[in-house]
């Protein structure tokens, strides 16, 4: 603590700010961003986050490849995206500045750790001259801060070695930003004490660094003002901040409770899906059994086995894993067993971009199994929506006895938003009954069990699990006779079974789409999954500029909502922004013969609001 009297700085009110913390992947930027998010959430701001990190665990220090960033947008109004461009960049080293500068809005603030701008680091980042003095940062508000040095000085009194002291500089940055945006100190002190419990020296160092940063803002005559962002007027209730992967894990647990079934997860670690495995592995007191399999195939196959035994079965993965699971999913289609596959889509082909999102597995989800193997597809539209999507996927899987694909992506997986917690008692009952008695008779009039005798309403077959007396039966991947389930190579039976499997999926009770924005518009944007936030924000901007625009967003991709064709045909023009090369466009064109126009982006970065706004304006103007 310093005893300098605080300066009286003007407090300016802002409606929002978009801050991007950027540093080396070892600099703790994700932790810093997370903590800033938590404090802001507690203050009642609306917020959205966008973490960005390299696939490598420790890419070479100081290089562009090693830059890790965390963008958080906080506001006093309701928002749906983490914002297009940061208004504030915290750059911990030259590489972070170089990698992130192009993102920052013109005139934006850049807070720079000047201590890291030595010759060696500049060279590693590929700077030929020091951007701090070559004029290349003109047009931005630059705040040079010797973060490393001040941090070292601040922690020295606690006996921290200079080498270790450096590690606390992210807390210095957090302290400084907390001061700038008038965030309270106490929550971060609590966080440090919980997070580093048992490591007294680390706690002291981080606390000292945080205070040093906070006080630096107050005392250094560098900043002209500090800012306040009032709470947003959100629907009242209890909120938590949740990212997509955690919401999915919680959704899986909730679905197990709502179906009164034990949860089984067969999984193989893969970015960006592993966190679901981690989260569920820690929830054993909910009766959740997790199995880290030897490969993606075994992960899916084990889930099929558990489903046969009567568990609510999941397998979690990303695109390359879905490719490997294909045969097991075909088996599940043929066995007509409930199973939920969670695909956190990432850039491809092949290994592609493990940490970057794409929505390019839609066709694989639709058609990525041999022969006619239809699977329902559910796609959450926001991080918190992942919770509901998991429950909905389970509802469909259980009611119709089918594997279901849930398509999230790397963006939803790691970004977070405030979530108005549901009343758990109001969540839907998705339980189904196991079959326990005969459902047919043989020629002698004795009771028999027909494992493929379908429910006339849902076309689902009875789910009789091992251990049920008298209902012993065999099922398999070979074509089965309708009703008895016995092996059948009969041509007519196969045609019938193909038709039945298709009809069952087609008839799933998915909700109709609703038109958001201007219902009477002639122009519509069609989206699915994680593009919801950006499209929604673009609609709002377009409307502010006097445009009429409608938004139709799909969270069910197979079957498509029954009213979709009719709804879309009411518009003169429909564009479809998606992070792939036009996959939904192809599906919709094929199904409804409608000229939906593609707007595609595949650079591993989610759509910005501006990109969608501009695509919409272009499309509206085009004749």
């Amino acid at each position: 603590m310093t005893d300098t009297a605080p300066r009286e700085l003007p407090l300016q009110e802002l409606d929002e700010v978009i801050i991007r913390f950027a540093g080396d992947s070892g600099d703790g930027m994700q932790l810093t961003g997370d903590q800033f998010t938590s404090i802001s959430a507690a203050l009642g701001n609306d917020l959205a986050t966008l973490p960005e990190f390299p696939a490598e665990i420790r890419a070479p220090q100081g290089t562009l490849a090693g830059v890790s960033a965390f963008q958080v947008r906080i506001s006093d109004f309701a928002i749906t995206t983490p914002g297009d461009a940061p208004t504030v960049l915290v750059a911990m080293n030259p590489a972070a500045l170089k990698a992130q500068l192009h993102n920052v809005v013109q005139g934006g603030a850049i807070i720079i750790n000047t201590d890291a701008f030595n010759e060696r680091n500049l060279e590693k980042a590929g700077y030929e001259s020091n951007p701090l003095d070559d004029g290349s940062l003109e047009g931005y508000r630059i705040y040079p801060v010797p973060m490393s040095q001040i941090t070292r000085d601040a922690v020295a009194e606690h006996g921290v070695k200079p080498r270790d002291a450096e590690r606390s500089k992210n807390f210095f940055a957090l302290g400084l930003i907390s001061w700038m945006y008038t965030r309270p100190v106490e929550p971060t002190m609590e966080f440090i004490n919980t997070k580093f419990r048992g490591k007294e020296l680390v706690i002291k160092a981080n606390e000292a660094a945080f205070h040093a940063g906070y006080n630096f803002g107050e005392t250094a005559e560098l900043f002209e003002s500090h800012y306040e962002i009032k709470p947003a007027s959100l629907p009242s209730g209890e909120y938590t901040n949740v990212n997509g992967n955690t919401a999915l894990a919680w959704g899986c647990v909730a679905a197990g409770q709502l179906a009164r079934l034990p949860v089984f997860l067969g999984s193989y670690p893969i970015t960006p899906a592993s966190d679901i495995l981690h989260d569920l592995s820690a929830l054993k007191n909910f009766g959740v059994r997790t199995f880290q399999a030897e490969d993606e195939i075994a992960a899916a196959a084990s889930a099929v086995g558990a489903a046969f035994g009567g568990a609510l079965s999941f397998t979690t993965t990303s695109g390359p894993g879905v490719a490997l699971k294909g045969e097991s999913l075909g088996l599940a289609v043929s066995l007509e067993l409930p199973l939920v596959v969670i695909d956190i889509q990432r850039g491809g082909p092949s290994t592609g971009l493990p940490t970057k999102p794409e929505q390019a597995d839609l066709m694989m989800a639709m058609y990525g199994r041999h022969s006619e193997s239809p699977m329902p597809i559910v796609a959450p539209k926001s991080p918190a929506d992942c919770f509901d999507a998991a429950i909905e996927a389970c509802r469909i899987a259980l009611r119709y006895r089918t594997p279901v694909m849930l398509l999230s992506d790397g963006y939803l997986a790691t970004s977070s938003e405030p979530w108005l917690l549901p009343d758990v008692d109001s969540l839907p009952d998705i339980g189904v009954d196991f079959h326990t008695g005969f459902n047919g008779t043989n020629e002698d009039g004795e009771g028999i069990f027909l494992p493929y005798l379908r429910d006339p309403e849902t076309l689902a077959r009875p789910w009789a699990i091992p251990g049920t007396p008298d209902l012993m039966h065999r099922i398999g991947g070979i074509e089965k006779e309708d009703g008895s389930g016995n092996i059948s190579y009969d041509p007519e039976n196969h045609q019938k079974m193909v038709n039945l499997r298709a009809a069952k999926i087609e008839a799933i009770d998915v909700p109709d789409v609703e038109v958001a924005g201007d219902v009477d518009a002639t122009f519509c944007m069609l989206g699915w999954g994680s593009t919801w936030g950006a499209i929604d924000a673009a609609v709002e901007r377009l409307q502010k500029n006097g445009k009429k625009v409608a938004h139709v967003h799909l969270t069910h991709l197979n079957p498509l909502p029954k009213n979709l064709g009719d709804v879309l045909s009411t518009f003169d023009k429909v564009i479809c922004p998606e992070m792939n090369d036009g996959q939904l466009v192809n599906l919709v064109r094929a199904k409804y013969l409608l000229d939906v126009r593609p707007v595609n982006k595949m650079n591993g970065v989610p759509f910005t609001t501006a990109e969608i706004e501009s695509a919409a304006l272009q499309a509206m103007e085009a004749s």
Partner: protein
Amino acid sequence: MTDISPRTEPGDWATDQEVRWCPGCGDYSILTAMRMLMPELEVDRENTVFISGIGCAARFPYYMNTYGMHGIHGRAPAIATGLAMARPDLDIWVIGGDGDMMSIGGNHLIHALRRNVNINILLFNNMIYGLTKGQFSPTSEVGKVTKSSPMGSLDAPFNPMSVALGAEAAFVARTHDMDRHHMMEMFRRAHAHKGASIVEVFQNCNVFNDGAWEGITKKQNRDGNLISLEQGQPIRFGADGEFGVVVDNGAAKVVSVADVGVEALLVHDERKADPSTAFMLSRLSRGPFEPTPIGVFRAVERIEYATSSTSQLAMAHDNQGSGDLASLLRSRGTWQV
């Protein structure tokens, strides 16, 4: 036991499905052994599950009046692992051939064995691909001439017992399709073992690899070429027990008992914690033309996988209490608006 009638008869374990293996296939005798064993195990049909992959052997579940799944090629151990974890109360048998288990499903087999999941794996080894009509398999001998290897197979074969022992299997046994009594005994032992058990069954494919095992399993060859491993007994064979097995220079070796004396023979101990001796025995024979051990190579106790999984659930329950969804959703901090 004789005055208590068993809960079931062998016929209760048969289904109404026509068995469609080629006439003369070794699978028939394995099926008969299994149906005869079941009543003796005093188990219920509804608590018994047969899981298979793809191949001739994989049709097995359709012929057992239990719960069953005919899965996909090679994945039966993985499917069974999921089932065994979800339902530790069940008796699960996994049936597959040498192609299914050692080739396309090799990975799942070794991992199921090392985890010690409570499943009984029967590996029907006929050293050939039957269902795809006669290509060499991962247990075929080098030089095997088949449709896909007209100039002879180049692949060095797997020895399933060595693979299983290398994969940390706790129960490893071998039998053959010409000896129903021995098969039943091995299956019984496999069933009694808590954890993953593997039984290799030398099985004749009379269409694509007829007589492949005859050099050791034909009646007149058994005395000289089948070594029955008996727990606690010196390992010896021959019509009059004139041959035996010793360990010599780090390897098992066949000797004449007259030359070395009974005391020098290796005494079989399937319960040895260290698998090295069992491994030596698995390497004794290079193929079905010289003395080959059958019986239980290894039977040691190791904690069963689903049991461990269940104890972790119980421990979590004890430490954290029964999971409460409303609290879970609040576990990362909340705020009121």
